[in-house]
C-alpha cells in the first residue's frame, strides 16, 4: 500500500521559445512520502511545479496522478484532481477572511439554481475551516479576521490550511517559509510535520538546507532544467547536496544532465 505511486512524471519538458526551462524530468512520489526539490535559481524547480499544477502547459511528457494520465487545462482542474499548491506569491484575497479564502472559487452554496447569485453557506464553510485548522494544528486567533490584518506566518498558515480542508491527494509548497521570521517558520514546519504523520504526500521546494533535512525523506536536485540527483536523506548530507546543486557532482544515472 505504501508503495502506491502518487505522482509520476516521464520526460516532462517545457520550452519557452528557445529556452529549455525544463528538460526530460522523470520524477516519482510515493504515498506518504515527503520530497524536497532543491536547486539554484533558474534551475527549473518552479517550472516543474507549474507544469504539474496546470498553471502552464507542458511542451512534452507525461504526468500521472495515482496512475492516471492527467492533462490539466488550468490550476482549477489540478486542484479539483486533488493537487493543492501553496504558491510562492500567496494566492490570498487580502480583504476576505479565512473561510472565504479557503473556499474561494469553490464555495459551499445553497439555492444553486440562482446561478451566480446562489447563496453562500457561511456556517458550513466556517465549520469546515475550523475542522481543517484543527487537523493541521494551525493556530489563527480569529478566522473571521481579514488576511490584511494577519502576520506573514498566519497568512502562510491559511494558505497551507487549504490543503487539509480539502483532503488533497498531493500538496505542493513553493518556498513556504522564504518570507517568514524564525517563529513563524517553525509554525509552518510544524504543520508540515503534522501532514507527514497523517501520511499526506508533499513536494517541498526550499532553499533552506536545514529545513529540508529536518522535514523530508528524499531530495531531488535540479540543475539547468534537468534533474541531476535523487538522494535519500539518510544517504546524503548538506555538503553532498550543495555539490550536486552547484554542478560539482552529478549522479551517474543522470550523467546526460551534466
Amino acid at each position: 500500500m505504501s508503495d502506491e505511486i502518487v505522482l509520476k512524471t516521464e520526460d516532462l519538458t517545457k520550452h519557452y521559445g528557445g529556452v529549455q526551462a525544463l528538460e526530460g524530468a522523470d520524477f516519482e512520489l510515493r504515498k506518504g512520502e515527503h520530497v524536497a526539490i532543491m536547486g539554484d535559481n533558474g534551475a527549473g524547480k518552479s517550472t516543474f511545479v507549474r507544469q504539474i499544477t496546470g498553471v502552464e502547459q507542458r511542451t512534452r511528457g507525461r504526468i500521472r496522478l495515482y496512475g492516471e494520465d492527467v492533462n490539466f487545462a488550468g490550476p482549477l482542474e489540478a486542484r479539483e484532481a486533488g493537487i493543492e499548491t501553496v504558491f510562492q506569491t500567496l494566492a490570498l484575497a487580502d480583504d476576505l477572511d479565512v473561510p472565504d479564502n479557503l473556499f474561494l472559487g469553490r464555495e459551499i452554496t445553497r439555492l444553486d439554481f440562482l446561478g451566480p447569485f446562489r447563496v453562500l453557506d457561511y456556517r458550513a464553510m466556517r465549520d469546515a475551516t475550523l475542522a481543517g485548522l484543527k487537523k493541521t494544528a494551525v493556530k489563527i486567533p480569529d478566522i473571521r479576521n481579514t488576511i490584511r490584518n494577519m502576520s506573514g506566518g498566519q497568512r502562510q498558515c491559511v494558505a497551507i490550511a487549504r490543503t487539509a480542508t480539502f483532503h488533497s491527494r498531493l500538496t505542493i509548497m513553493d518556498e513556504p517559509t522564504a518570507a517568514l521570521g524564525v517563529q513563524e517558520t517553525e509554525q509552518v514546519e510544524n504543520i508540515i510535520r503534522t501532514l507527514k504523520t497523517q501520511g499526506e504526500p508533499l513536494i517541498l521546494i526550499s532553499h533552506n538546507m536545514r529545513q529540508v533535512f529536518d522535514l523530508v525523506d528524499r531530495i531531488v536536485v535540479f540543475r539547468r532544467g534537468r534533474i541531476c540527483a535523487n538522494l535519500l536523506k539518510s544517504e546524503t548530507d548538506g555538503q553532498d547536496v550543495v555539490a550536486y546543486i552547484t554542478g560539482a557532482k552529478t549522479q551517474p544515472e543522470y550523467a546526460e544532465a551534466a
Partner: protein
Amino acid sequence: MAETTHGTGGLAFDRSKRAWPNEVNIFIALILIVAIFEALGQLLPYMKGQSLLFDTNDRFDSIFNEARLRIIILQVSIIGIIAIGVTQVIITGGIDLSSGSIVGATAMIAMSFGQTELVNGNPNPKAIFGLWAMDLPVVVPVLVGLGCGLVAGGINGLLIAYTRIPPFIATLGMMVSARGVAKWWSHGNPISFPTDQYASIGSGMMPVVWFVLLALLFHLILKFTVYGKHTYAIGSNEDAARMSGIAVARHKVLVYTIAGMLASFAAIVLSSKNLTAQSGMGLVYELDAIAMAVIGGVSLAGGRGSIVGTVLGALIFGVIISGFTYLRLDAFYQEMVKGGIIVAAVVLDQWRQHRAAMKS
C-alpha cells in the same frame, strides 16, 4: 504574536482584534456634518437660529423638519441608484465613467416608447414614433430602457474583460458615445408627455422607494451570494481570484452589465419623475455617484466597501448639498466644496489603508 499562544487551533474567537466597521465611522461623519450645519445655523447671525433637520417652527408633527428630510433623500435617491452599481464596479477595482451618459441615452430611448397619444385632447406634440408606439403598456419602455443599460454595460464589461484596456478608458469611451446616442435619438429634441403608468414610476417619493429596495437587494447580494464574494475577491487580489478558479472575465462583464442596468433604471425613474427626457440628462451623474461611493468608504483600490457605506455616503452628499442651500450659499460654492469633499474622502481612504498596512 501574542494571540497565537491561545493554542486552541483557531477555535477561539478573538473579537477584540477585529476592526471597527468602517460604516460606523461614516455614520459618525454624517452626524458630525449635520452637527456642524446645526451649529452654523445657531452661530451665523443671518441664520436667525434656524435648524437644518429639526422643526423649529412647529410646522410638523415630529421634531424633524420633514420637508427638508424629504428633499434630501429625494435628491440623492436617483443618483444613489446609480451609485449602487458604481459601488460594485469600484469594489472589483474598476471605475465606471459612463453611467451619466447611459442615463441620458436611456431616458431618451425609454421615454420614446412610453409616450401617450393625446395630451389634453390634442396629439402629443413631442411624439417620436407613429401611433404604434403610443400608450404602450409600461413594461415596454421599462424593458427597452433596461435593455439599453444591458447593452451599454455589457459593452463596457466585454471591453474591459477581454481587450484588457483600463476601465477608465473603456467607460470614458462609452461616456462620450452614449451621450452621442442621447443627442442623435431625437436630434436634440426633448421627449415628453409619458403615459400615466410611466409617470407613476418616479412620482412623489417613488425614487426613494426604488433606492431603498435596490440598496437592500444589492446589500444582500454582495453579502450573501457567490457573486458578492467574487466581486470582493477580484478587487482584493485579481491573480488570487484567477488562480482560485474564478472566471474573472465573465464576472467583470456581469458587474459592469449590472451597473449599466442600474444606471438605466435610474434614467427611467428620473424621466418619469420629470415627465420628460432630454439629451443632457444625467450630466456628471457618474462623478456624483462615484463621490457617494467614495465618501461611503468604498476604496478606489478595490476590495473594500459596502452598499451600506454608499447609502451613508449618499446621505452625507445630500446633507451637504442641502446644507449649503440652507446656509444660502451660491451653487458655485457648492460645486467647489463638492470637489474638495471627493478629494478629502480619497485622501482619508489612502490614509486609512496606510495605517492598516502599518498595523499588520
